[in-house]
């Protein structure tokens, strides 16, 4: 049956070539498109996690929903002792954040002002490498302020300028101080760069009376794939008033946006593939229709319906396999190449900065599992496309088919 299928493929060249080309294009596009979509999402996520958000963060319950000093973590050291016992945690840092008014001599802006640990922060976030001008914070940098370039622009300030801060201390009392602008950073995220400033915790804690307090504890794990396991361990060790959240919850908006984007991506590729599916099916059907007498003769000389089905299955299986065997290495190579050398579109990050895009690069994702399920889908749909022609040809009685004109 297999040999007969091969002969048929070679004999009906038009149908074979069309099926081969369509299957090849579908498989190649599917692999490349999904690779690009997944790569963009992974890149967005990585960039977002690199900038400031941790893979796990520990909060007092309701801090994220209600906020305010009433929902600060009040015994940071106790939690840090527990974190030291958990394997898989790379490092952690306690941040104290508040919203206050920063003012230069001419302009004011409501901003996030965060006390950070200058020695730990570089391994947790992109803050230090995002330095544009001046210097990053150090444990002894005192009242040095490290601010986003767009915030500095709003304040019309320059390095060395005094920036006043007015806000509420951790006990809700009034807090005000004069900071000195020592450094500016650009992460590429406009909203972050336009509304964030940092100061060494040692100094900020004195002003805000926030010793051993934190808005949250930011945790970096060795392997992002272990984040759920580590989070479960942390949750078991902290009391009920505290919650430990992974990036999936912390960046829910982005995760949801990526899911919606993926759904639309799959809908787009599905529409494309439905067209291809019907074209393959129609070509298969036309081919089978033109071979009714041939099938009738085969049935008359003793071939069962099952054998006819097997013959048609072999035909589509061979054609699909050839197309996929050519498309898969090419698609995989493209995915791999662009995962290592991302496509660069100048100005893209500027255009899409509001959507969290902070890089001009579009990296692809090279994942063998994804490629496998992509080609499996193409295989499956190709095989499904022959079901109707199979049913059609088997609906004829052998003699009727043999005399069909």
């Amino acid at each position, binding site marked *: 049956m297999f040999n007969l299928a091969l002969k048929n493929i070679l004999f009906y060249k038009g149908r074979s070539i069309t099926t081969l080309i369509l299957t090849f294009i579908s498989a190649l596009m599917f692999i490349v498109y999904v690779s690009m979509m997944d790569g963009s999402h992974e890149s967005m996520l990585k960039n977002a996690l690199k900038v400031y958000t941790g893979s796990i963060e520990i909060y007092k319950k309701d801090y994220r929903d*209600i906020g*305010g*000093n*009433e929902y600060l973590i009040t015994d940071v050291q106790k939690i840090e002792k527990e974190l030291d016992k958990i394997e898989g945690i790379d490092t952690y840092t306690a941040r104290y954040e508040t*919203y206050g*008014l920063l*003012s230069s001599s001419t302009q*004011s*802006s*409501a901003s996030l002002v965060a006390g950070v640990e200058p020695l730990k922060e570089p391994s947790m976030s992109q803050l230090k490498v995002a330095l544009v001008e001046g210097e990053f914070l150090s444990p002894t940098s005192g009242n040095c302020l490290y601010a986003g370039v767009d915030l500095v622009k709003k304040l019309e300030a320059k390095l060395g300028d005094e920036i*006043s801060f*007015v806000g*509420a*201390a951790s*006990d*809700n*009392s*009034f807090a*005000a*101080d*004069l900071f000195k602008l020592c450094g500016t950073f650009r992460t590429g995220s406009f909203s972050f760069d336009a509304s964030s400033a940092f100061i060494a915790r040692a100094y900020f804690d004195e002003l805000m009376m926030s010793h051993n307090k934190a808005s949250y504890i930011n945790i970096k794990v060795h392997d992002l794939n272990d984040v759920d396991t580590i989070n479960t361990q942390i949750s078991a060790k902290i009391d009920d008033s505290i919650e430990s959240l992974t990036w999936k919850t912390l960046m829910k908006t982005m995760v949801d946006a990526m899911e919606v984007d993926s759904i639309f991506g799959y809908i787009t590729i599905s529409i494309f593939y439905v067209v291809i599916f019907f074209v393959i099916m129609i070509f298969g059907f036309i081919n089978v229709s033109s071979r009714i007498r041939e099938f009738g003769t085969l049935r008359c000389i003793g071939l069962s319906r099952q054998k006819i089905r097997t013959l048609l299955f072999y035909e589509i299986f061979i054609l699909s396999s050839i197309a996929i065997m050519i498309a898969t290495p090419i698609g995989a190579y493209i995915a791999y190449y662009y995962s290592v050398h991302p496509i660069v579109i100048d100005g893209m990050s500027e255009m899409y900065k509001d959507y969290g895009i902070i890089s001009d690069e579009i990296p692809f994702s090279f994942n063998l599992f994804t490629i496998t399920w992509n080609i499996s889908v193409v295989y499956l749909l190709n095989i499904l496309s022959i079901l109707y022609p199979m049913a059609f040809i088997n609906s004829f009685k052998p003699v009727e088919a043999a005399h069909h004109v």
Partner: protein
Amino acid sequence: MKRILLTLSLLSALAFGDEASDIMKRIDDNQRGQNVYMQMSMTITSMGHSRTMKMQSWAKGTKKSFVKTIYPPKDRGITFLSLDNQMWQYIPKIERTIKIPPSMMLQNWMGSDFTNDDVVKQSSIVDDYDAKILKREGKVVTIELIPKEDAAVVWGKIVSQIDTDTYTSQKDIFYDEDGEEVRYFIYDKVKKFGKYYSPTVWKILPSDKKGNSTEIILEEVKYDQEISEQYFRKSALKRFSR
């Protein structure tokens, strides 16, 4: 018959609307007079502990007010000036006068449950809201205040219980735009100062932060006495800070 009933109900609604607005105006007059000087203490309770501040305030009409912190020593000399819905603050510790931007208007004022907007938008209750009487129970009238269409206000609704003997509020409940209760004010110990009545104890309780409160006690109130215009200039922030 239906038309007559409809006309009567419309007329009574209009009459109640006018009466409600009139009540709100009389409350506003009671609170402000021509001008008013107050010395007050403000006790803020949050996170299980309390702290007290003392302040002096000078206000003229609905557009001008000046506040000076006199206690505790740490905050002494911090001054606030509000003019025509704008607000400035002077902080002696850093010797800076800062204009509070619109984005900060919903921030807490001096760590209390007041917002900067409460301090600045002193006239908005009368100007920006439509008043309607909800019910009467003896001398107490409950009035609902709904923002006018084009009013730039924070609250979605305010419900006030008014004592019509003294034209002072007993309780104000503030709701957000979704109709959720956000906070309420309770007023107590109404005293007469000349021809004006004013509650001398105000308590603010945020609905979402149990245990938090801000209590203001008016220690000294003087209505309709001459207040120098110098208090309502930006130079006053630093000058009267000392």
